[in-house]
Structures are given as structure tokens and as C-alpha cells.
């Protein structure tokens, strides 16, 4: 089936929206979450489809579709490759060396000391930012 330019342009916009929606909806899956370039690739494909529609018919509709796709592609590319990037850590941690000891309050304010787990069980420390 050969799509006419109108539906083809619409398909491009829908594919762009689907790329973003699919990534957000599947964030709980590490396989998806840890490959954020997938949504950028999806947006690039969507933009290609919209560009193809425009080459077949130059109209307000196909121009708008391509414009939307290009904007989303630019935003997605900037977010993944610039905004989401973090600097290299000044990590003092080396595998095989002792983890620096600390005491912090747990959710109920009771002090927890890392050294208390020595000889008892392994510890997984997760540093995260609180709001993302």
C-alpha cells in the first residue's frame, strides 16, 4: 500500500509522538530506560517519514508535520546528548579499597552506620537526587 502524502505526514507525527510515549511508558524496563538513544532514533525515523511526505506534496499540512517532527527531534537530541549528560565524578572510590564509613539517619531518624554491617552482610549504596 502506498500512502498518499497527507496520511504519510500524519504517520510521521504519530511515530514521533509514539517514540516519546513508548520511552516514558516503558521507563520501568531497564532495557528501554538505559537506551535513551532509542527515542532519538525513533524521532529521526519519524522526521524522515515526514520529510518524504513533504517531497511528495508541498502543502501547509506536510510542512507543519515536518516542522513538528524536526522540533521534537531537536528537543530529544538536546535532552539526551546535552541536558542529561553529567560530568565525570571526582570519585575516590576504588574497587578493593575500604568504603568510607558514615552514619546517617534512616527514614525514621534512627542512625545507621555502614561499619555495623561489616562481617554481617553486603551493602548496596544507591546515591540519587531525591527528585529525579
Amino acid at each position, binding site marked *: 500500500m502506498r500512502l498518499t502524502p497527507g496520511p504519510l505526514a500524519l504517520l510521521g507525527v504519530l511515530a514521533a509522538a509514539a517514540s516519546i510515549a513508548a520511552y516514558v511508558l516503558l521507563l520501568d524496563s*531497564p*532495557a528501554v*530506560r*538505559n537506551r*535513551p538513544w532509542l527515542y532519538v532514533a525513533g524521532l529521526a525515523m519519524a522526521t524522515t517519514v515526514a520529510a518524504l511526505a513533504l517531497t511528495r506534496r508541498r502543502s501547509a499540512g506536510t510542512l507543519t508535520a515536518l516542522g513538528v517532527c524536526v522540533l521534537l527531534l531537536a528537543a530529544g537530541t538536546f535532552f*539526551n546528548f546535552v541536558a*542529561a*549528560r*553529567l*560530568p*565525570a*565524578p*571526582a*570519585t*575516590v*572510590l*576504588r*574497587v*578493593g*579499597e*575500604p*568504603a*568510607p*564509613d*558514615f552514619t*546517617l*539517619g*534512616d*527514614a525514621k531518624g534512627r542512625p*545507621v552506620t*555502614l*561499619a555495623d*554491617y*561489616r*562481617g*554481617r*552482610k*553486603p*551493602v*548496596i*549504596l*544507591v*546515591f*540519587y*537526587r*531525591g*527528585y*529525579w
Partner: protein
Amino acid sequence: MADRDLAVTRRYGLVHVAGGQGGEDVPLPATVIVDRNGLVRWVSVTDNFQVRPDPAIVARVVQGLS
């Protein structure tokens, strides 16, 4: 646990200076596995805040500790 003043985060070298939404210091997202002897056995620090270690890999590393 809450590292309110980032004291532990700093001791671990995991501060992202002015990385917060309001320009405040925040931790670099990181996962550290400490074994029963108190030694660091595995470290993951992400360079993209969308990407975090797969919990299945973390679990496998912990299970592999003697």
C-alpha cells in the same frame, strides 16, 4: 537514608557541583556495592541521568560475593 548536607556524598567523591534544578549541589546518581569486609566491590556512576544500573546486574554482583 537522607544525606541532607551531602557530607557522605562528598566523602565518596560523588558531588555534581551546581547540578540541581536550582543550581544547588546534588549527588551524581551512583550505585556502590560494599562486601562483608567493608570493601568496595562494584561501582557504577552514570554519565547520563536517564541511565541507571540494571537491578538484575546489581543483584548478580551481590549474589556473587562470598
